[in-house]
C-alpha cells in the first residue's frame, strides 16, 4: 500500500480523534464552567443564608448592628478574622448553630470584608430591583431596620399599602429594630413605594 492510500485511510481516524479530543475539552470546560457556576450558586446561597442569619442572631444584642458592621468593613476584615469574631460571639452566648458559621463568615467577608469594605448597609440586599429604590425620607430606615433580614428588592412588592403598619408592627414583635420615632416615616415610605406606578 503506498503512502497516499495509507494517509487517506488514517485521515478519518485522526479526524475522529480530533473530534473526540475537542469534545472532551469542551466537556471539560463545560464541566468546569458548570462546576464554577454551581460553586458560585452554592456560594450565593451560603451568603444569602449568612445574611439571614445575621438578622436572626445578631440583632438581639446588637441594636446598632448595621453601623457596627460598616465600621468593621472600613477596616476590611478577612474571612479568617470574621470567623474569629463568630467564634467569640458563640462563646459569649450568641445562638449561632454549628451549620451557620460558614454562612455567616461568607456573608460578612463578602459584604464587610476587604472587597466589600465600602459597601453600604445591607449592600447585598440592594441589588437588582432594590437598587432602584427612590431616595426619599424613610429609605435609610428601611435599609437599617429591614435589610438585615429581608431582600428588599422582592419584599416591598408583597404588601398592599394599607397593610404596612400591621406588617411593621409584626416585624417589631419578631425583633426588628424600628425606633418608635422612625416608624411613621418608614410606613409612609413603604406606602409610597407600593402605590408608585
Amino acid at each position, binding site marked *: 500500500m503506498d503512502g497516499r492510500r495509507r494517509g487517506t485511510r488514517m485521515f478519518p481516524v485522526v479526524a475522529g480523534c480530533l473530534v473526540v479530543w475537542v469534545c472532551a475539552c469542551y466537556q471539560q470546560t463545560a464541566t468546569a464552567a458548570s462546576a464554577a457556576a454551581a460553586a458560585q450558586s452554592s456560594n450565593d446561597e451560603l451568603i444569602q443564608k449568612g445574611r439571614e442569619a445575621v*438578622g*436572626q*442572631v445578631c*440583632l*438581639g*444584642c446588637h441594636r*446598632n448592628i448595621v*453601623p*457596627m458592621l460598616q*465600621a*468593621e468593613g*472600613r*477596616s476590611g476584615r478577612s474571612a479568617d*478574622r470574621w470567623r474569629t469574631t463568630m*467564634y*467569640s460571639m*458563640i*462563646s*459569649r*452566648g*450568641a*445562638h*449561632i*448553630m*454549628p451549620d451557620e*458559621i460558614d454562612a455567616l463568615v461568607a456573608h460578612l467577608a463578602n459584604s464587610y470584608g476587604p472587597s466589600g469594605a465600602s459597601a453600604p448597609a445591607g449592600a447585598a440586599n440592594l441589588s437588582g430591583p432594590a437598587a432602584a429604590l427612590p431616595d426619599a425620607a424613610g429609605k435609610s430606615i428601611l435599609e437599617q431596620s429591614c435589610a438585615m*433580614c429581608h431582600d428588599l428588592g422582592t419584599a416591598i412588592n408583597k404588601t398592599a399599602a394599607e397593610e404596612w403598619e400591621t406588617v411593621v408592627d409584626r416585624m*417589631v*414583635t*419578631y*425583633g*426588628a429594630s424600628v425606633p418608635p420615632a422612625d416608624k411613621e416615616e418608614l410606613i409612609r415610605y413603604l406606602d409610597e413605594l407600593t402605590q408608585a406606578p
Partner: protein
Amino acid sequence: MATRKVDKRKGDKRSLPSQPGGAGAVSRRNFVAATAAAGIGLGTLSSAAFAQDGPADSGQPVSTGGTPLPESQLVETYEGPAAGAVLAQLRAAGVRTIFHTNTSGFVPFWDAVHAAGDVQVINVTHEGHAVAAAQGYTMAGAGKNLGFFFGSDAGIPNSLSNMYCAWKDRVPLLVTYGGGSLRGQGADGFEAWDDQLGPTKPFTMWTGYLLTQQMSDVVRRAINFAYGPPSGPVTLLWGEAQASQQVRAPIYQIDLAHARRRFCAEPALIQQAARWLVEAQNPVFVVGPEITEDGAEAEIRALAEKLSVPVTETKDVMYASFPNDHPLFLGQLAALRRPRKADLLVSFGESLRRNNPLHPVPTVHISHDPDILGRAYASDLVVASDVRLAIRDLSDAVDGLLTRDRMARIRSTRLAEISAYSTQLKQSREMVLRSRFDESPVSWERLGYELEQALDKDAVIVPELGSQYWKVLAQLTFGGDNKLKFGRTVGSALGWGVGAAFGVSLALPSRQVVSLQGDGGFMFGQAEALWSISRYQAPMLIVILNNHSYNDSRVRNMSNGGLGGGLLHAERKDYNGHLGNPDVDFPKIAEAYSLRGEKVRAAAELGPALQRSIRSMREGKAVVLDVDIASDGQPMSDPTWYQHYSIADIGRQQRGGA
C-alpha cells in the same frame, strides 16, 4: 424618743416601759404588751403573743380557753456597758463573725468581744475590702449570715465604692463607724464633717445613730431595714453613744433566715399569670437573683420542667439560680433568635433593669422587692411576692387549669424541640473550644475548660471580669449540685471581687473558692485583700486573667470611635488600654503576702499549674495564678501603645542633664 413610766393602776398599754434603772422591775409580759401597743414588732414573735386582752401586768398568761399562747421570746435583759448591748443583740441574731478595719475608739466593744469568747473578728486592711468581704459572707450564707462591719468614720469614703455594690446587689449589711458625734457639728474638727453618714445615704436602706439607752433597739431596727425588702446596707454611727456607760437593754431574738419579710401574691394575679402561661404557645422564663435569695432553685426547676419552658438569664445574673447544663437552659435572654417565637415572658426575681429584650411580648414580673417592680420596665402583670411562694402558687394554679394528659403532651413536645436547640448551642461552643484549644496566650475557653476539669464539682466561683467572662463561665457547670457562683456585682465598680471571694470563703470554708480577676480589675487596689486571705488562711485560688490591658474599655473606645469616626480610632491608638510597662509580677505580690504565686504563659502549662494550685489550697495556702490570656475583642488599636511620659526625664532636663 420620749417615754413614760407604765401606769400599772390603769393597765396603760400605750406607754413604753420605764427607763432602765427606774423604779420597779419590768416584767416580760408588760414589756411585750407595751411595745406591741406602741407598734414595735419583735421579729419572729407572733401577733398572738401580744396580749391585747386583760391587764397588761397581771403576770398571768392570757388564755383563749384553748391552747395557751406562747411565752414571749425575749432572750434576755442585758445589763452592762452600752457597747456590750450591741454585741449581745448581734449574737442574739446569730452573728458570730464581724469585720473590722483599723480603729482606736472601740475599747468597750473590744472588751465585750473578748468577754463573749465566741465572736471571731476578721481584720481587713482597707474599709472597701472589708465591706466587700462582709457582702460575700452574707451572700454565701444562704440567708443565715449577716455581714457586720465596724471601723473609723474617717474610713467612710474608703468604704463607699463597695457599699454602692452591696446596695446595687440588694445585699443586707450592717456597716458601722466610730465617731460622728453631734457635739462637734459645724466645727470642722478632727476627722469630722457635718452629717457624716450623708455620703452613705444614696447606698443605704437607712442611716442612724447608736444611742446609749437604745443600743439594742437601734441594732434591731437596723436589721429590720437591712432585710426589708428592699434589702441593702444600713450605716450607723457610734459617736453619740457613751459606749462604756452601764445600761439595761432588751435583747431580741432574731432569726436571720426569716428576717426578710415574706409575703404571698394576690390570688387573682397568680390565676391570671397561670392562665397566660397555660395559653402561651412559646413562653420563656428569665431567672434573677431572687431565685437564690428566696431559696427557690428547686421550685423554678420543677415549674420549668412541668411545661418544658425554656429558662434564660440576663447579664446581671449574680448567682447560679438554674443549672446551666439543663436542656431547658438557653443562656442569655437577649440572645434569643429572631424572628421571636416567644409569646410570653415571665421574670422570676430578675429586675429587668437593662430593659426587656423581648418587648413588646406580654411580660409577667414577679419579685419580692416592691422597689423593683415596674421600675425599669412597665410589665403587663406585676406580682409582688416571695418568689418561692409565687412559684409554688403558680404551679398549683397551673395544675388546676390543665389535665395531666395535656400537660404531658405540652411538656414532651416542647422538651424535644428545646433540647435539640440547646444541644446545638452546646455543639457550637464545643467547636469554638476545640478551635482555640492550644492557642497561647491561653484562650478564655481553654481556661474555663481547665478549671472545670481541675476543680471540685461543687467549687464556688466569684467572678469580676469584663464582657469576655461568659467565655470562661460557659465552660463551667453551675447550679443544682454543681458549682455556685457569686458575682459579678451588678454595681460593676472594680475592686470588689477578691474581698468578696474572701468573704465567701469565710462562709463556705469546706469548699474550693475561686476568684476570677482581670489584671486591670486586680489593680483596683485588690492586692491588700491578700493580707486577710493570708492571715486567716483562706484556701482560695485567685486567677488573674492577664491580657496586660483594660481590654474591655479599649474595645468599647475603639468601637465607639469606629462608629463616630474618631481621630484616635483612625490612628489606632487609645490612651486607656495598655497596662504593660511595667508588666506587673503578680506571683511576686502573692509571695509578698506569704501566699503561693505562679505564672502561666502557655496553654500546656495551665493544667499542671492548676493541679499544683489545688494541692496548695488543700494544704491551706491560697494561690495567685497569673495566666497570660488572649486579648479578645476588636483589634482596632495597637494594644501596646501608650502615651509616654517620664517624670525622671523631665526632672533631669530641668536640672540641666545632671
